[in-house]
């Protein structure tokens, strides 16, 4: 499949961008539309260690406990729309028929019941694990030991055929070089690893995901450079951390944007993945909805742009939380409450026509907190997007020039 390169910006100016609105909204799932005037909370979770003991224990954890808790709390709090995200554990990609299929089917069955009974708009993103190992081979036929490239594709097929609404992945291509480059603070190596090799890997996997989605009448959402740019960001850390300069991390984010864009060039519709902090940049280029995470993801990690990154989001996520009890209920219930109320604030701002004011408050709060938050402020994100689009047909230049 040919890729449709972005060589011009879909938005005419940065000010056109705001949370809850995308140029190209996407409908899927049980009455869900993303990017059409409303921010939707996207709750993400992880099973407790040991739940993967066998297919039934894993199904019970995901369906009977986690999904039911999420749906009960969404109805209790009166949220009109919720998206669930299931980031698959290793067993689900290693043996999809046994471990993945019952979970995917069971979650959807329960969601349908709540949708029918309460009218809540629901959808679920299945983020397939990418266990491919560079040392064994990233392409089919190369990994003779585990067959991970083949299993990864199979896991997409099983998810799409059994209840997924949206397919995503955090691909690993280029990470072996990018990790080396981070440790050596070598920007050329990082550009080669993520900007070039990572884009080539995306060009291989994403047309296949899009085809699987089309065949099963579901949506291919998008990717994230969690494996690369988030590694930089978290190693750079905050004000107490001195190992990796935050200027290095900021520049890697700009490079990563060109890689993440490839999924949409292959025909994915969005929304992309929440942990892709490059979302404002790719949304500025392509006009597709983006998922983001920030202050509502403190259960998973600390970043230096907890408010700013909400500025142009279409889904607002908690990143991921391990299932466990907290004072206010189970962890998934508590964190759904957190992101659901934030989405309600954004949606109220839209109804009162104060959304651009709130967007600018979010942005101003963290604009100068770090170099990375500064380049992701929507006005600067737009400029970086322009540098990508102006060189859209050359995967090297479009990663180098926005850096």
């Amino acid at each position, binding site marked *: 499949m040919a890729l449709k390169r972005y060589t011009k910006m879909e938005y005419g100016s940065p000010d056109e961008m705001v949370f809850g609105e995308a140029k190209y909204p996407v409908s899927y799932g049980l009455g869900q539309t993303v990017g059409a005037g409303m921010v939707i909370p996207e709750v993400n979770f992880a099973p407790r260690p040991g739940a993967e003991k066998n297919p039934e224990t894993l199904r019970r954890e995901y369906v009977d406990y986690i999904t039911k808790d999420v749906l009960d709390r969404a109805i209790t709090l009166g949220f009109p729309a919720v998206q669930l995200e299931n980031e698959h554990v290793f067993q689900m990609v290693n043996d999809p028929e046994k471990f993945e299929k019952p979970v995917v089917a069971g979650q959807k069955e329960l969601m349908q019941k709540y949708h029918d009974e309460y009218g809540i708009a629901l959808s679920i993103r299945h983020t397939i694990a990418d266990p491919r*190992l*560079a*040392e064994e*081979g*990233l*392409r089919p036929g*190369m990994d003779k030991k585990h067959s991970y490239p083949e299993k990864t594709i199979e896991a997409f097929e099983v998810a799409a055929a059994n209840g997924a609404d949206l397919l995503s992945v955090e691909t690993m*291509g280029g990470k*072996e*070089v990018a990790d*080396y480059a981070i440790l050596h*603070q*070598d*920007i*050329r*190596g990082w*550009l*080669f690893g993520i900007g*070039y*090799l990572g884009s*080539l*890997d995306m060009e291989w996997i994403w047309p296949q995901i899009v085809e699987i989605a089309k065949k099963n009448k579901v949506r291919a959402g998008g990717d994230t450079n969690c494996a690369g740019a988030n590694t930089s960001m978290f190693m750079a850390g905050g004000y107490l951390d*001195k190992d990796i*300069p*935050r*200027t*290095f991390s*900021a*520049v890697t*984010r*700009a490079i990563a944007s060109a890689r993440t864009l490839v999924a949409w060039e292959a025909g994915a519709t969005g929304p992309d993945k929440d942990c892709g902090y490059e979302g404002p940049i790719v949304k500025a280029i392509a006009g597709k909805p983006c998922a983001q995470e920030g202050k509502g993801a403190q259960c998973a990690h600390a970043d230096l742009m907890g408010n700013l990154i909400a500025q142009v989001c279409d889904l607002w996520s908690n990143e991921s939380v391990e299932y466990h009890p907290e004072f206010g209920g189970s962890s998934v219930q508590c964190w759904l409450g957190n992101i659901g109320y934030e989405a309600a604030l954004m949606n109220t701002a839209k109804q009162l026509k104060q959304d651009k004011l709130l967007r600018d408050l979010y942005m101003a709060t963290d604009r*100068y907190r770090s*170099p990375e938050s*500064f*380049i992701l402020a929507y006005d*600067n994100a737009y*400029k*970086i997007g*322009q*540098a990508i689009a102006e060189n859209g047909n*050359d*995967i*090297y*230049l479009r990663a*180098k*020039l*926005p*850096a």
Partner: protein
Amino acid sequence: MTAARLIEEESKAGKLKLSKHEQDMLRRIITDLSALPDEQGKFVDQCLKAYKDIPMFNPRNYDL
């Protein structure tokens, strides 16, 4: 070098505070990126030589 230049300008304007460590890195990034060729082929040749010994890196994974 859009991102690096944006950071540099805002730092010079005094609004974005950077430590010396971060400023040094920024200067190094600008120098390193400025030294790169404009042609994709030259860049790839350069990198395949420079990074061939990175453990786990196999150009065949990318059809190179």
